[in-house]
């Protein structure tokens, strides 16, 4: 007996979304429920988790306020620094570079992704350490320069690690730009600077917003760069989390911080979308 058409259609749909649904449930929803449950628990006497129902962990969030503040300051600053460096590069690639060279130059922006970020960051540890750039300073007579393990070093690592992620969306939005608009603007006697602020910049804003939101959100969960270039002193929430799970073994408190971090990310995302909405007018902006 053949199945009715509607049933068959539904079965096919279920088969198509089935595997992903199972995945999303088992590895996203379930773990989330787990950390929410854990966040209301207690630390076991020897560390780990012990069932309980208490708001103690959330009440204690203030003990990590410094890490939250640090992250919420350095993430947008890092994204802004990335933007300042990335914009001219994206502009050059999309507008100034000749088509033949463009492909090569764009590929060169992506290639660093193929070397481990860890290894590249380690190279910075060397460059910023006493045997690297400070050693060069000694040749000109400036002694005892310290670069590594400072917020500045972390910021540099951030710009380095996330620059390609900022360049690409801006480049894409600038590349779509109709050059005839720029020519028309020049023909009508507009100065290059007013063409830039009047036409180029507004049209590239969607790319800018995408890049800034992407980098900011990724930075909110950063661990490696502050760990390696901050000397265990410049703490992000990511570092505080790792510490709570892998050193002080306070799983409930760690879970509460993880839940809070997700809430912060969602808030940042909503604010970013709101701003994007406003600057871009009614144009649709894809943040992800």
């Amino acid at each position, binding site marked *: 007996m053949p199945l009715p058409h509607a049933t068959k259609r539904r079965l096919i749909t279920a088969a198509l*979304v089935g595997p992903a649904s199972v995945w999303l449930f088992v590895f996203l929803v379930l773990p989330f429920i787990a950390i929410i449950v854990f966040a209301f628990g207690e630390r076991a006497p020897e560390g780990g*988790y012990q069932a309980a129902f208490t708001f103690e962990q959330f009440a204690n969030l203030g003990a990590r306020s410094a890490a939250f503040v640090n992250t919420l300051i350095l993430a947008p600053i890092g994204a802004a620094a990335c933007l300042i460096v990335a914009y001219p590069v994206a502009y050059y690639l999309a507008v100034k570079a000749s088509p033949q060279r463009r492909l090569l130059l764009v590929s060169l922006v992506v290639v660093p992704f193929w070397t481990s970020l860890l290894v590249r960051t380690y190279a910075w540890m060397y460059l910023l350490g006493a045997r690297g750039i400070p050693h060069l300073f000694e040749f000109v007579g400036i002694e005892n320069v310290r670069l590594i393990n400072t917020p500045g070093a972390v910021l540099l690592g951030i710009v380095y690690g996330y620059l390609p992620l900022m360049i690409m969306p801006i480049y894409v939005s600038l590349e779509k730009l109709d050059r005839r608009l720029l020519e028309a603007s020049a023909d009508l006697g507009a100065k290059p600077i007013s063409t830039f602020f009047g036409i180029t910049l507004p049209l590239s804003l969607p790319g800018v917003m995408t890049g800034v939101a992407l980098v900011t*959100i990724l930075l909110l969960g950063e661990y490696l760069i502050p760990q390696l270039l901050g000397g265990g002193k410049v703490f992000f929430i990511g570092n505080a989390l790792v510490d709570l799970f892998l050193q002080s073994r306070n799983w409930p408190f*760690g879970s509460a911080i993880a839940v809070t971090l997700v809430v912060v990310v969602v808030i940042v995302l909503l604010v970013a979308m709101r701003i994007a909405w406003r600057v871009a007018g009614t144009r649709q902006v894809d943040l992800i």
Partner: protein
Amino acid sequence: MRALVTFVYLFLYTPIALVVLFSFNAGRNASEFTGFSTQWYGRALSNTFLMEALRNSLIIAVTSAALAAVFGTMAAIGMERLGARTRAIFDGLFAAAIVVPGVVIGIATLVALVEVFGFINPVIAALWPGDQPPKLALGYGSIIAAHGLFTMALVTMIVKARIASLGRDIVEASSDLYATPFTTFRQIVLPQIIPSILAGFLLAFTFSFDDFIIAFFVAGSKTTLPIYVFASIRRGVTPEINAIATMVLVASLVLIFIARFLMRERTTTN
């Protein structure tokens, strides 16, 4: 402007150049160049632990990217057929899988799996007829699963965007001509979305291969390449690490080149 752009490229490539340079260091320090040598390449290749870490990373990245490509594409197509409300739920979950920081994914997966294993393992032990019941533990499975979550969402997003831009009339025409839905899919839809699936696969592979933080939590006793490198930073990096990083870089450049070449061939023959 040109000078500035040149400077940015220098900034991007100085550390990479340094990594490659020190892979040819004669001395065992990754911080003092004492002469030219290729010995570290040989040592890296004969270091069982480093090779095992590389193999683990490749297995995990290929598996999770393949699963993500298949299931993610299926989901992207399936979501087209869902009602608006169900589709919104899926959209929300996939978006969450992408924006939730890796460190939280790692922790949450660890917490959940440790609990689930703690519940299931005694059950298996009670039901198992033999002496040594299998024990579920963190390892390949948990890393692939946790990476798969993010990468599947990535593939779904990319493929969905492509599907949205497809014209529906050709699909309708195909079914009007009595092609079965499967034939329509294989001959009409698939060729158009294959580039986005491949792009998704590549991104997924790259993400999984380079991920440290998620694997750090859920790897159990398995070592991936980033975990090995992180551990090396603590016990003192030798140019072996630089050698392996250089080899990975060269291998990926060769792959990109081949992919470019093949794509060019295809577009010219078509």
